């Protein structure tokens, strides 16, 4: 993977958004944002209602994902272009999710909704309805998804990257500062994890930084590119952004997103937790 195969620019979207075989999809944390205005032709996926199981804490399964995309009119060979608010956090999460279920051609709009809005590009509230398709998701690719036991075994062995804000890492906050304080039972981070906030990988306008800057960022923070890497945050969406940077832009192999993330780890009985600004010992 590379920047060229994973990212598209706003100009590219303007040029190709009406092409056959191109499907624009907006994915937001604020699920009302799409209804107020979206890029012409874009459909919406709700990261919670559409992509999470309604009862268990997990994804929708292969059959549910197939049914969802069939109903929304996405074909297996479509070029899916994802974008959203919050610097593409949830769009990157959806990107990871599409890759998990084996969709071949997925792209992220660089800068997402923010860059688009700051450029004063057009948004519309026009309702979009695509004809139903017969979408067939593949078996989930667990090469890019980490579970808790694997994370426990990775302490002191693999690169662990905590992409939350420094205050969340240190245990001074439990959640991002624009959300009320809630979630995990304990604050802190997984011992040995490097603190590399997702935001360091992005410019103020939400676009990704240049490849050489990104490599330097992770190397300087202690990521050994010769080792496997697991990224985590609070619920797996910001770490999907970092997974995207490492795996899709920089082309690193063996990078996983731990979507259980801090809400799971900080509530597990008996696992090690480190407090403060230092990574801590294995």
């Amino acid at each position, binding site marked *: 993977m590379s920047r060229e195969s994973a990212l598209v620019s706003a100009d590219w979207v303007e040029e190709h958004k009406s092409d056959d075989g191109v499907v624009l999809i907006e994915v937001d944390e604020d699920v009302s944002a799409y209804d107020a205005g979206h890029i012409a032709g874009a459909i919406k996926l709700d990261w919670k209602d559409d992509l999470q199981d309604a009862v268990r804490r997990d994804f929708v399964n292969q059959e549910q994902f197939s049914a969802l995309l069939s109903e929304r009119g996405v074909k297996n060979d479509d070029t899916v272009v994802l974008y959203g608010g919050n610097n593409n956090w949830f769009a990157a999460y959806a990107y990871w999710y599409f890759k998990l279920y084996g969709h071949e051609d997925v792209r992220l709009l660089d800068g997402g909704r*923010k860059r688009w809005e700051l450029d004063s590009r057009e948004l519309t509230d026009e309702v979009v309805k695509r004809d139903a398709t017969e979408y067939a998701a593949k078996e989930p690719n667990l090469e890019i998804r980490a579970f808790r036991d694997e994370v426990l075994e990775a302490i002191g062995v693999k690169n662990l990257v905590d992409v939350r804000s420094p205050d969340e890492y240190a245990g001074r906050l439990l959640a991002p500062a624009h*959300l009320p304080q809630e979630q995990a039972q304990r604050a802190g981070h997984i011992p040995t994890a490097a603190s590399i906030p997702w935001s360091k990988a992005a410019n103020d306008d939400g676009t990704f930084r240049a490849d050489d800057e990104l490599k330097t960022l992770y190397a300087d923070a202690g990521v050994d590119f010769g080792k496997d890497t697991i990224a985590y945050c609070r619920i797996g969406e910001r770490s999907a952004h970092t997974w995207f940077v490492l795996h899709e832009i920089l082309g690193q192999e063996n990078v996983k997103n731990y979507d259980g993330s801090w809400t799971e780890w900080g509530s597990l009985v008996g696992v090690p937790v480190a407090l403060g600004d230092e990574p801590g010992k294995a």
Partner: protein
Amino acid sequence: MCGATKGGLDLKGVDVDKEAVIQGQVLRGEEPVGGAYVRLLDSTGEFTAEVPTSATGHFRFFAAPGSWTLRTLAPKADPVDRQVVAQYGEVAEVAVTV
């Protein structure tokens, strides 16, 4: 957002004794700017959170006590930085003009 009270957003349902709230409004002249982006940076300049403003230009953060910088990005305007101090039991109100 339509029910915003004078001086800022309605705080109904927010326990201000337990939260260090930073909130305010982005204005261009006297006009509220909806769809601007307000970033909350910590005392070292590190990004902590970001919200788009509402149609009435309002924004709100639940921060930790301490010194923060608000960086506002709006269409056709240069970024604007404002310093603010947050503490439990107080609502820090900030008006940002772009």
